[in-house]
């Protein structure tokens, strides 16, 4: 940030800043209106559907019936696991991408975004071919003599985690990469100039400054994980049940839209709560670092 210039009076500057802000807001207005119309409004309609007839019976069922609570907790657990694995895998990739040369960046981005161009269903079936009892992975391990019986990689939580991490990884890499690009390389050079070893300059300077990206990536991956149902249905072999599958069942199969709306509301509230928590944790972490 540059220091205020002496010849510009403070009041004038504030006015200009405010005008610019208003102008920017105007630019964002069409998008905001669109969101309000096609997102906020349907969500409100959904919420109102859940209390149709002025009764909280649907929420009562969602909260008191052990089935839905168990499945919701399970879904949160899976989403948290997926987020943690994505973070662990994505950070080094993002770090490398932010430091890579032009060729490395192009290749890395290509590899990262390639799966985006393939449908989730196709990718899920590809994992089934790879991870099955007689799949490519197990066959290779067996031929190498490393295992005797096939590893249970598919039709369980492991399979679901692998499939979901694969789909969601780019959503973690890109925000962290963007945050790392914004970190001024002079800062870590300064830290090293002051005698900090590389790991320390990373931990105390680069990493804290990339936390907004980490937080954005975690929030994205977590929220998207909660909405998954095709991947867990296929790769979980029925052994993994996500709340989104139960919502889908209520909507599509039983046309119990009020109850589905209640379940969605509970999911939405849980998501918002966790979103707030992630925000607070990363903000706290940033403040704690000098």
């Amino acid at each position, binding site marked *: 940030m540059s220091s205020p210039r002496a010849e510009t009076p403070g009041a004038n500057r504030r006015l200009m800043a405010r005008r610019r802000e208003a102008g920017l807001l105007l630019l964002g207005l069409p998008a905001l209106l669109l969101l309000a119309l096609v997102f906020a409004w349907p969500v409100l309609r959904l919420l109102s559907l859940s209390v149709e007839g002025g009764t909280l019976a649907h929420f009562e069922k969602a909260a008191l019936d052990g089935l839905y609570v168990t*499945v919701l907790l399970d879904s949160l657990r899976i989403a948290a696991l997926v987020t943690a694995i994505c973070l662990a895998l994505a950070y080094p990739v993002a770090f490398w991408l932010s430091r890579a040369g032009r060729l490395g960046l192009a290749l890395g981005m290509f590899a990262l975004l390639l799966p985006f161009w393939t449908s989730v269903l196709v990718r899920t079936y590809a994992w089934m071919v790879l991870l099955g009892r007689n799949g490519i992975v197990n066959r290779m391990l067996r031929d190498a003599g490393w295992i005797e019986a096939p590893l249970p990689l598919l*039709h369980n939580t492991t399979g679901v985690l692998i499939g979901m991490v694969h789909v969601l990884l780019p959503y973690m890499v890109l925000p962290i990469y963007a945050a790392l690009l914004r970190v001024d390389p002079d800062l870590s050079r300064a830290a090293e100039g002051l005698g900090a070893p590389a790991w320390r300059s990373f931990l105390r300077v680069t990493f804290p400054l990339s936390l907004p990206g980490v937080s954005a990536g975690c929030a994205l991956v977590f929220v998207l994980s909660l909405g998954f149902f095709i991947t867990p249905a296929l790769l979980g072999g029925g052994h993994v049940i996500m709340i989104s599958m139960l919502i889908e069942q209520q909507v*599509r*199969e039983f*046309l119990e839209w009020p109850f589905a709306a209640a379940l969605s509301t509970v999911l939405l509230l849980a998501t918002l709560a966790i979103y707030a928590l992630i925000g607070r944790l990363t903000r706290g972490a940033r403040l704690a670092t000098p």
Partner: protein
Amino acid sequence: MPVITRRGLLQASGLIVPSLAAPAYAQGAPPSKPDRIVVNASGGAMANFLRRAYFADFEREHGIRVIDTSPVDFGKLRAMVNSGNPEWTVTEIGGQDADRAREMNLVEPIDTSIVDLSKYPAIGRQSHIFVGSAYSTVLGFRSDVFKDGSHPKGWAEFWDVARFPGARSLRNHPVDNLEFALLADGVPMDKLYPLDMDRAFRKLDQIRPHIAVWWSTGAQPAQMLVDKEVVLATGWNGRFFELAKKNAPVGSEFRGGSLKSSAWGIPRGTRHAYWGQKFLQTMTNPKLQAIYATELSYAGLHPDTVNYVAEELRPLLPTAPANLAQQFWLDVAWWTENGARAQERWNRWMLQRG
């Protein structure tokens, strides 16, 4: 010279009133041709065969293009009809939803002056639903593991893991499975309904440890048998038929199979309902039904259809007389009434780990 009286005028206009209330096309001349109609069905390979059997013929006869969409989605059908402008001219409806579609007033009545059902068996003559074909959930097996007819015949043997060892797969859904469990437990086919859920779930408890995969899409059981992920699986007979035609080592056993009819309807309020009825009429043609059955094994209900199918394929049709006798018709009414309750119990049962 006739005298025009007030009463005469009223009578004359009285004659006109009913015909105004009837759909426009009932007045004689067919309504003008749209350039296209939209037929919604299950997609996948089925879409190709529908095109070859029915769409192509309809397009040739009427000069109206048939656009196909998928998948079959009851929630979407309801939303479309409620919106007042359904995109689909004709849609397939999941077997269990057929009764509900009529009860919830989501489909137009079948106009039997256009759709000729006079030769159809009773199960195919419904007021609002056209039965496109019959299919069955049957027992699929690896024919290299269970050689020369040594495979389990019926559900009691499917449950017998000592005599027929190996990983199995069942659908992640109570439909069919409750019936199969009861048949395995010795309930005769004609005494299945109303289903004894307690007994069915008790029987399912026995097989659960041997179910490696609870499948959720129709492609899965066929794929898993081919990959040898499992050696026994339930599945829709058409999927196994496809494998048999490709000479894959997968066989299917019709004994105890669960017959269902594929239902078609015209979404209420759709713009080209008349051409929807015409399309259904095309689907009643036994020669076209035979083309479809030859490709997919899902035979239409016209009694002449089987005669147009090659003789060696007839044993693989769920509607072949010998197969029909060994299977039961799924009681759609029972499932419409108890489906939600059964599903909730199923979810709960699936959650009990073990």
